[in-house]
């Protein structure tokens, strides 16, 4: 752990070394950063909700570059969370070069990352949570885990998520919901749930035979003297976005009618406050907030959006607490006569260099990682350029993966899923096994090699694009566009299904993709059962090791129309 003094030196020295324009004022901004400042908050009422979501198994602090594109369509264009960079700063009144500017945007990203360091680390988050519980009193605080907690790292993959289960247990969450959790398979999910001291909630999962609830929908709690109902919502399109065969007995979906029934039932049972702990994605929850009556707060996850404060939709507050442990979300509520009369909210950026790690959690993280520490830290290469994933159309980590698949599987084209999880490597960084698995650790990793016709490729791109840019959020699945190697295209996000993708071009020759011709395509993360091929992490370890030094050039193969 760095002392505050070390941090200040680190920040200013780095700023000087990198020729960080704007100089003193930025250094001054960094000097204001303390653990107490991060925790400073105008507390309200008798209820504090703390929200962590989409941790993706990141126990240690990370770099995570926010996206350059996060396009909203139709009624959702140009409003949060569909603001990036300078637009984001202007909308929320943040100063370029400030700590919050770094936490929320990619503006000056590499310089800022070197100055402010990594965010997250579950031991730092534990410190914040303990401190808030101590200040408010245990009986006034609920800690809610929005899911995507058990997948996304080397150690989570090796331990079938036991590392995350053991560490999360120390935080004593009050409830959780799921998405990638289900890719551990029905049996393992149920085994873990049996071992939890807190409920795993899902209002929207029913069994396939009788359409009866599989999990509890609601947890009723007394918080600060008020009755609070927590209703859980799993990622509605898990069986479509992820392999259905891994949890064949369960059906998901939005199930808005069932949700309204569960909200009504909670109110009838005396709930003064109804909280939806959701893995729906931001735009889905923005729409849901207007469609469902009786929800006071939606703690939303899945789309990895981080918004500095809760957004009001009618009488519902929607808080989006980011991903990868970068933020701890907080909503305080004052309840009088069975109604929320006042509130305050914030996202606390978990600046790892200024927060004292919680001793107990640090020891637990060290313990669960110990059997894997040496392998996890093994260096397989080095990068000269910034490697990140997040973005609507591509990211340099996926450019690298697409390149690796084409070369190792001798394919003309490659497809890499538009996952939003995956951390960032700065230029000059080593690439370790941890880094590689932060992009690839999952339970259906086979890299296929198949022939697709140009027409089929067009259908795939249109299909995924509609999952991202359908003007009705209820049809959005929450992933980004499938990444394509070896091919360029033009995308019109405001178009309709079947008309968004044009000018598909084979980059090697510059020729248009021929609808009737077959192309050899390599790709990973197919949702089909029995896919054959090497695991993506093995293939990429080999590729990166052989290359030794990675340098990904700017990728402008995807052109945008009308946006």
């Amino acid at each position: 752990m760095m002392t505050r003094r070390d941090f200040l030196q680190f920040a200013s020295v780095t700023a000087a070394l990198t020729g960080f324009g704007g100089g003193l004022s930025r250094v001054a901004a960094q000097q204001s950063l303390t653990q107490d400042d991060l925790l400073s908050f105008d507390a309200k009422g008798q209820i504090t909700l703390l929200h962590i979501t989409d941790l993706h198994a990141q126990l240690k602090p990370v770099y995570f570059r926010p996206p350059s594109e996060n396009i909203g369509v139709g009624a959702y264009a140009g409003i949060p969370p569909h603001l990036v960079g300078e637009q984001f700063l202007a909308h929320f009144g943040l100063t370029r070069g400030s700590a919050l500017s770094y936490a929320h945007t990619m503006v000056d990203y590499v310089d800022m990352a070197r100055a402010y360091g990594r965010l997250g680390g579950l031991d730092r988050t534990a410190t914040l949570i303990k401190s808030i519980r101590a200040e408010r009193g245990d009986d006034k605080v609920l800690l809610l885990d929005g899911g995507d907690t058990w997948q996304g790292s080397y150690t989570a993959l090796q331990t079938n998520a036991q590392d995350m289960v053991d560490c999360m247990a120390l935080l004593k969450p009050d409830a959780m919901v799921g998405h990638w959790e289900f890719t551990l398979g029905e049996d393992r999910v149920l085994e873990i749930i049996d071992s939890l001291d807190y409920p795993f909630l899902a209002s929207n999962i029913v069994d396939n035979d009788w359409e009866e609830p599989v999990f509890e929908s609601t947890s009723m709690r007394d918080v600060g003297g008020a009755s609070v109902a927590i209703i859980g919502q799993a990622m509605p399109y898990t069986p479509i976005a992820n392999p259905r065969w891994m949890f064949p007995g369960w059906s998901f979906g939005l199930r808005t009618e069932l949700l309204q029934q569960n909200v009504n039932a909670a109110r009838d049972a005396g709930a003064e406050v109804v909280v939806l702990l959701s893995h729906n994605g931001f735009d889905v929850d923005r729409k849901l907030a207007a469609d469902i009556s009786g929800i006071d707060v939606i703690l939303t996850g899945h789309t990895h959006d981080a918004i500095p404060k809760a957004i009001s939709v009618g009488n519902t507050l929607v808080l989006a607490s980011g991903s990868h442990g970068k933020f701890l979300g907080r909503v305080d509520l004052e309840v009088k006569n069975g109604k929320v009369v006042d509130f305050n909210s914030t996202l606390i950026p978990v600046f790892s260099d200024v927060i004292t790690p919680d001793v107990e959690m640090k020891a637990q993280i060290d313990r669960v990682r110990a059997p894997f520490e040496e392998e996890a830290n093994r260096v397989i290469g080095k990068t000269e350029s910034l490697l990140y994933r997040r973005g609507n159309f591509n990211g340099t980590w996926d450019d690298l993966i697409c390149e690796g698949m084409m070369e190792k599987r001798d394919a003309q084209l490659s497809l890499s899923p538009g996952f939003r999880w995956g951390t960032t490597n700065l230029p000059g960084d080593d690439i370790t096994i941890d880094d590689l698995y932060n992009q690839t650790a999952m339970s259906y990793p086979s890299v296929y090699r198949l022939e697709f016709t140009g027409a089929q490729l067009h259908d795939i791109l249109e299909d995924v694009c509609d999952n991202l840019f359908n003007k009705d959020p209820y049809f959005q699945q929450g992933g980004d566009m499938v990444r394509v190697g070896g091919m360029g295209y033009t995308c019109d996000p405001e178009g309709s299904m079947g008309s968004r993708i044009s000018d598909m071009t084979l980059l090697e020759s510059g020729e248009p993709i021929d609808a009737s011709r077959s192309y050899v395509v390599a790709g990973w993360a197919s949702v089909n059962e029995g896919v054959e091929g090497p695991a993506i992490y093995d293939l990429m370890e080999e590729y990166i090791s052989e290359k030794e030094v990675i340098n990904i050039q700017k990728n402008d193969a995807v052109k945008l129309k009308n946006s």
Partner: protein
Amino acid sequence: MNTSKRQFLGRTLGVSAGMAITALLGSTRALASVEDVQKAIAEFTGGKAPAEGVVTLTTPEIAENGNSVPVSVSVESPMSEDDYVESVMILAEDNPSALVATFHFTPASGEAVASTRMRLARTQNVLAVAKMSNGDVYSATNNIKVTIGGCGG
């Protein structure tokens, strides 16, 4: 609910209680065009254009499995001797054969509620048309998306 043993036989085909079945998947009659669908509705309603409301059609926004998509329909009605739902027809507009099922009710059904599963060839509209004992007709339409397979993250 007042359900006779005879009516309960319908359950073996995955249909909830309260009605007998006259048609399910596999009808030999092909309804390939919009005109054919319109004609089938007209035959069912006796040429009357269905009004909106009264019918609630429940389907997933996106099908998890296009081969087995759950569909439920309920129709508001007192289900009394002189005011009840006679029948409800479900159609999938773009299936090779559009007719999914027709459910028949009597006042003894107690409520006009039915559910079954259907196969959907592709993204399309699914319609439920209800015929009341007084000759009124109502309909509801849902669009159900059938995807190739997403990349959710």
